[in-house]
């Protein structure tokens, strides 16, 4: 994750270098998991907006009637109530996106997406953990 053990270190990350890096699939204006870029691309009013997996905390899914809702929760400062805030941020005074929620009639697809995102998050966390152990 973002948390650095040795004090307030913030590791810079970036989804794409330029707009040409956006994958073709974003054209469908649907949530897309780009594993190679470790990024989730969200459709927001015609824009294809990438979010690096490091910005994502978790996803939650729930069914309401004929629709399924998928909420993407992001890492933000001031979230860890009661805990010592040890997650560094490049600019803690910026405005942060805390969550974005989508609706779909296709519950299976949202189920699949939710698993994909959770898997990617796990993978990246694991790799980060290994990196830290190697460094010790």
């Amino acid at each position: 994750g973002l948390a650095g053990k040795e004090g307030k270190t913030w590791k810079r990350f970036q989804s794409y270098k330029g707009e040409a890096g956006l994958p073709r699939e974003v054209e469908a204006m649907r949530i897309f998991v780009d594993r190679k870029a470790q990024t989730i691309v969200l459709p927001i009013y015609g824009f294809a907006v990438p979010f690096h997996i490091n910005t994502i905390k978790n996803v939650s899914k729930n069914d309401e009637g004929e629709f399924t809702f998928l909420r993407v929760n992001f890492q933000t400062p001031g979230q860890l109530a009661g805990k010592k805030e040890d997650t560094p941020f490049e600019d803690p005074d910026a405005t942060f996106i805390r969550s974005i929620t989508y609706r779909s009639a296709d519950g299976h697809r949202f189920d699949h997406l939710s698993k994909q995102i959770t898997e990617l998050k796990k993978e990246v966390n694991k790799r980060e953990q290994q990196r830290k152990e190697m460094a010790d």
Partner: protein
Amino acid sequence: MTTQFDGIYHGTSSEVGKLRIAASGMAWRGEEAGEVTAIPSANIKWAQWIRVARNYQLRVGHKDQKEQNGKDTKPKDLKRDVFDGFAREDHDKLAHLLKQHFSIVLESKEVSVKGWNWGVTDFQGQELAFLVSNKTAFELPLTTVANSNIAGRTEVSLEFAVPADKKQSRHPPDELTEIRFYVPGTHTKERGSEA
């Protein structure tokens, strides 16, 4: 002389159509419903070029009523039309046409693809823009905000009206229903507690 661009969308609609540009103005016609959106050359004020989900977008700003016919206008009358689906290579051709027919410059607007969830919100007319490193990450049309909420002193949520299904397409886009912002700048931070 008329120049035609195929595979162009109007607004966020899924209907594909053609955009034609001539000295008299520009017009988009949808291939399914056949409806026409026309902007006469006298109404065209500005044009922008920006990368969106469906490749590149042409935005056309309208002149207000006063500029068009001398009558006074309210700010809400200011309008723009957006057309998605242009290829990157269309830029130069489009820039040339707009210059030639309407004497306007096609401005390029840069987008952020950094993948960050922090930035600055900026009200731009009817839109709330989210900027990352001074580049647009996305814009929210405020006219579609159905409800907004302030939770505590640092969280703002916006709920969006999801359009009722006109017709169920085979591959409908995912519908944004809510976005929540954390705005730490609005309260006094406790400093020195971790020193």
